[in-house]
């Protein structure tokens, strides 16, 4: 009796599994099915776009996954995603691999993001220049008193080296120098926020959306381009005008020539409605 029910269970499982497999292969063939993969920074934004897009175009289906900019680009090259979301440029190495596989990637800037410098709310420091940030993150400055703060050790927090933000920050703030070996590498932006809000000597960086969301528990520090220029807080206005120095474009990478489905989705993200969603998600519209 028991054996029979077990056998029946296995058969039922196999049936269910095969129907699921069949269904998913059917949807893959469906032209309206679209996958977007890549940057963790952009996951919220892309999900918001996908949701709104699916509502406006019944029957369409957009699936969104994170994993990091590099993962998304690799997936585009391997043909496992239609659109790669990336918070950094495609590297030369990635471009050559794509070409070897016969893929011409096309880059579309879809939004802008400012990177906010955050410190503990109790930290009295008023502003930091790009040069001071570089010296803090490369380990030349180790005490807040060296940048006009109180006598306290600086606790340097960074994202993990797999993050697009890590590479962007290294390129544009550290002038391509190495991070201090003492910099603590956090696995997520939320753990940076957690640490900055509880450790009084901490400094970290995060996408503007996160910094705005964590208002009150962390303090965003105005940044000066040079030691003598005016300190500027990140905002839509200062990032669009280019006066806030730590900002970047967020990209979609697609295979060229792109299919009609992909084209429709990208046109939607660049439309006024799509860019309105960018603003709601605390990023900066591109237009």
């Amino acid at each position, binding site marked *: 009796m028991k054996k029979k029910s077990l056998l029946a269970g296995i058969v039922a499982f196999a049936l269910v599994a095969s129907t699921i497999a069949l269904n998913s292969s059917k949807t893959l063939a469906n032209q309206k099915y679209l996958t977007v993969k890549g940057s963790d920074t952009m996951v919220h934004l892309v999900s918001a776009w996908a949701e709104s897009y699916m509502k406006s175009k019944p029957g369409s289906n957009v699936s969104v996954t994170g*994993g*990091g*900019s*590099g*993962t998304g680009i*690799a997936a585009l090259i391997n043909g496992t995603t239609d659109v790669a979301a990336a918070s950094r440029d495609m590297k030369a*190495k*990635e471009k050559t691999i794509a070409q070897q596989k016969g893929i011409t990637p096309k880059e579309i800037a879809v939004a802008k993001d400012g990177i906010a410098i955050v410190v503990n709310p109790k930290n009295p420091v008023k502003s930091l220049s790009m040069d001071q940030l570089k010296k803090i993150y490369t380990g030349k400055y180790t005490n807040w008193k060296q940048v006009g703060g109180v006598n*306290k*050790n600086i*606790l340097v927090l960074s994202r*993990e*080296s*797999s*993050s697009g933000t*890590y*590479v962007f920050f*290294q*390129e544009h703030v550290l002038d*391509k*120098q*190495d991070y201090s*070996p*003492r*910099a*603590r*590498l*956090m*696995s997520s932006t939320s*753990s940076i926020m*957690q*640490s900055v809000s*509880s*450790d*009084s*000597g*901490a400094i970290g960086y995060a996408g503007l959306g996160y910094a705005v969301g964590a208002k009150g528990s962390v303090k965003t520090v105005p940044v000066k381009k040079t030691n003598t220029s005016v300190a500027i807080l990140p905002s839509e206005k200062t990032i669009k005008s280019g006066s806030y120095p730590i900002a970047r474009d967020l990209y979609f990478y697609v295979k060229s020539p792109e299919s009609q489905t992909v084209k429709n989705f990208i046109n939607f993200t660049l439309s006024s409605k799509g860019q309105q969603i960018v603003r709601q998600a605390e990023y900066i519209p591109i237009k």
Partner: protein
Amino acid sequence: MTKHELKENIVKTILSGASLTSIIIVLLIFFFLIKESAPFLLKTSFVDIFSSRWVPVSFIEEHFGMLPLLTGSLLVTSMAIIIAIPFGVIGAVYIAELARPIEKEILKPFIELLAGIPSVVIGFFGLVVLAPIVKNVFHLGTGLNALTGAVLLALMAIPTIISISDDAIRSVPASYKQASMALGATKMQTIWKVTFPDALPGIVAAIMLGIGRVIGETMAVMMVTGNAAIMTLYPFESVRTMTATIAAEMGEVAFGSDHYKALFLVGTILLLLTFILNVVAQKVLKKYRRV
């Protein structure tokens, strides 16, 4: 061959195939890890592999020195075991020898529950609750350090140590204890002079399996140790363990690059370490197992 024998043989083959699966899988994993990391080993000099700098992403020059990762794992693991041993061993002695049946009924399921908590949950607890406590108790700048990681890992090692030590203590023959009691020894004297020494090999094996559990743990240490790749033996410094390095960097690494191969080498070293630990622990257990 009769129909019956044929049936018997088929069943036998299926069963032995199922039991061989795990051996084959372990061998395949070993083979795959070595295959992926060998080109890096051949290309890079020994001095570079055991240098003290792990800088995998750099615009200037990448470094893949394993030493900070090794010392990081060893520091966190040894501290965790030092914390876990007293709790694990004393707990096991109490459960096996002193606890009343009703206490056992309550203690055992809770210890098993502790073993079953997902490590990401323990890590989250560490990040939000334990790290601030460690920071305040020791007046540090931050609680993200090796000690916090070690305490979390000790939490995970304790159930392993308790349940295997408990088995070892309970397998001490009752006649030994009865003989000791008959000579006029008290219960405590019997435990520490007769039962405990006799169960010691099993307890040692339990501790070694606990180390194996701890050294391979990833998520919890990644969340609380700060992950700075510096060589240190100071418990309040940040460390980067081998497991956390693989987990954090594997997702983005360019396929086939030096970094990719170096990560596989880290994996190979880790697998070798846990393999040796497990083999030695099994040997110890087997040697002293009563017939």
